């Protein structure tokens, strides 16, 4: 394969990885935030206590979700997995509200 074509192919791979990483980051952040919201009770009295604990959980979740989203690229199941969790949490949050 000519060098120029090879370089172009490599560039495309890198751009795809960056896009994949961006997608995984956005989904992971949205999922971690949705998990935080799911744990909060909008009408409760102990929101400060709960949010404090839930922030700890979300901070731990965020890197794990990002690694799953970016790392599991076979059949794109990492991104699908994040999207599914986000959907479930969003429905749950909507139902709570």
């Amino acid at each position, binding site marked *: 394969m000519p060098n120029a074509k090879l370089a172009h192919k490599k560039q495309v791979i890198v751009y795809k990885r960056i896009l994949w990483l961006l997608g995984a980051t956005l989904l992971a952040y949205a999922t971690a935030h949705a998990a935080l919201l799911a744990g909060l009770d909008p009408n409760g009295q102990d929101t*400060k206590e709960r*949010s404090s604990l839930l*922030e*700890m959980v979300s*901070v731990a979740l965020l*890197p794990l979700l990002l690694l799953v989203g970016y*790392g599991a690229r076979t059949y794109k199941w990492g991104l699908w997995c994040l999207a599914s969790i986000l959907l479930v949490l969003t429905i749950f949050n909507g139902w709570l509200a």
Partner: protein
Amino acid sequence: MGWLHSWLGLLAGLVLTCIFATGTLSVFDTEITHWMQPEIPLTAPPTLTAPALTHAATLLQNDEAKGTFPFLLLPSRRDPVLRVLNYNGHAFIGPALAADGHIFPARQTAGGQFFFNFHFTLYSGVFVGSTLVCLLGLLLLVVAGAGIAIHIKALWPNLVVVRPFAAKPRAWLDAHLLTGVLFFPFLIMITYTGTVILARAIFPTHPFVQHHIATSLPQKSRPRVAPSAKPSPIPPLLPLVEQAKTLLHTSDCRFILFSSTEIQIFENDEDTLFANKSTAIFSRADGHFLRVEEKNSASAQARGLMQGLHFARFSSFLLRWLYFASGLACTTMMAAGLVLFFIKRRKHSSRHIAFRLGEGLTMSTITGLTAATLSYFLANRLLPSTLPARTGPETATFFMVWAFFSVHALLYSLLHRPINGWRIQCLAVVILSLSLPCIDLFTITHDWLNNYGLYCSVYALAFLCATIAFIAHQKLKEKI
């Protein structure tokens, strides 16, 4: 995962190395302040006396009249003097008082607080800096996870392999893996707890969570208005401290905050793993007891545990050294990773300007930051001790030296002479390290027996730094 580990590691690693290096120094922030204020004798036991508190209250009221918000830091085992502190935007500074109430004629310095502030705000304000540090903390957790995923196959047959005399990339990789694997639990613990402490900065505020709304306003933009009414005089503080000890079931109190109507006395958290400070609140008008605010709920305890583990205030002297050594190992791991990144790509990418810039920035992060730190210590000894607003020139020295080393590193790297650049900077670090004990001995007439452990530790670390830089310099000589 390799791509993720390398590139995120490079982008975040340049700043994270600085965050870890300054965090490691912050383990001994109080001791650094002691070294930088040699005029304060530390031999007396921590005693809280009425004359000292009365004089402190007068100083505090004078500061309040100027529109600042001072507070009192009470004597403790680690810092046995009473301090009246003001926040200058980056550090808590102020006079230290002896047991009889006289002010020690100590030089003004940001001391170890400078490193602490740089560690969690990058010296760029609480709002922007903390958010950035929190995001970088999260990135580090991702990079560490990716690193484990890469290394997991090799972990089973060999936990770590050390081949210091192997070919260059192999030796650097071994150094990266050795520190990365052995200190992995510490790395995860310190990164996770640090990120959790600043987590509020990265999640959006929720309208139904009252304390989110209260804390969402950026600290920097919050206007500093002087109290509308003149605060009432401060009642005698010693009886209040004694009463607070009984109410909080503690043997020591740590600091006292003042508002226009209240006096808040916080318990000392140096003996417990949980950095939760319960508070006894008194009326400022007549000193009568108002209430106790205890932080015993499960979530407060959990948060206190995170803060306690990260700040390590509970720890003994030995444990603090272990924190320091672990922090140093993690900084080494990141620095080795950065160097490895460029060694691996030098053959194919060295002609690219991005590569040159990256290598220059790596040089400025590793040797430049070391030189800037040493210069900060040297500036403390070389600047006149009576210089007004002395913290400004001290910190300016740090940033000016760092900027100079960065420009030098970038120039050498862009001129395709990075090895020469590394060698010159290593030599500069050797000279600065060796000059630190010499200048200290010639400029200060401190009593060695007062605190010989502190001075010996600083000299030993300066010699260690000089030795490492000298070995690196000699090794690089062989490459030319």
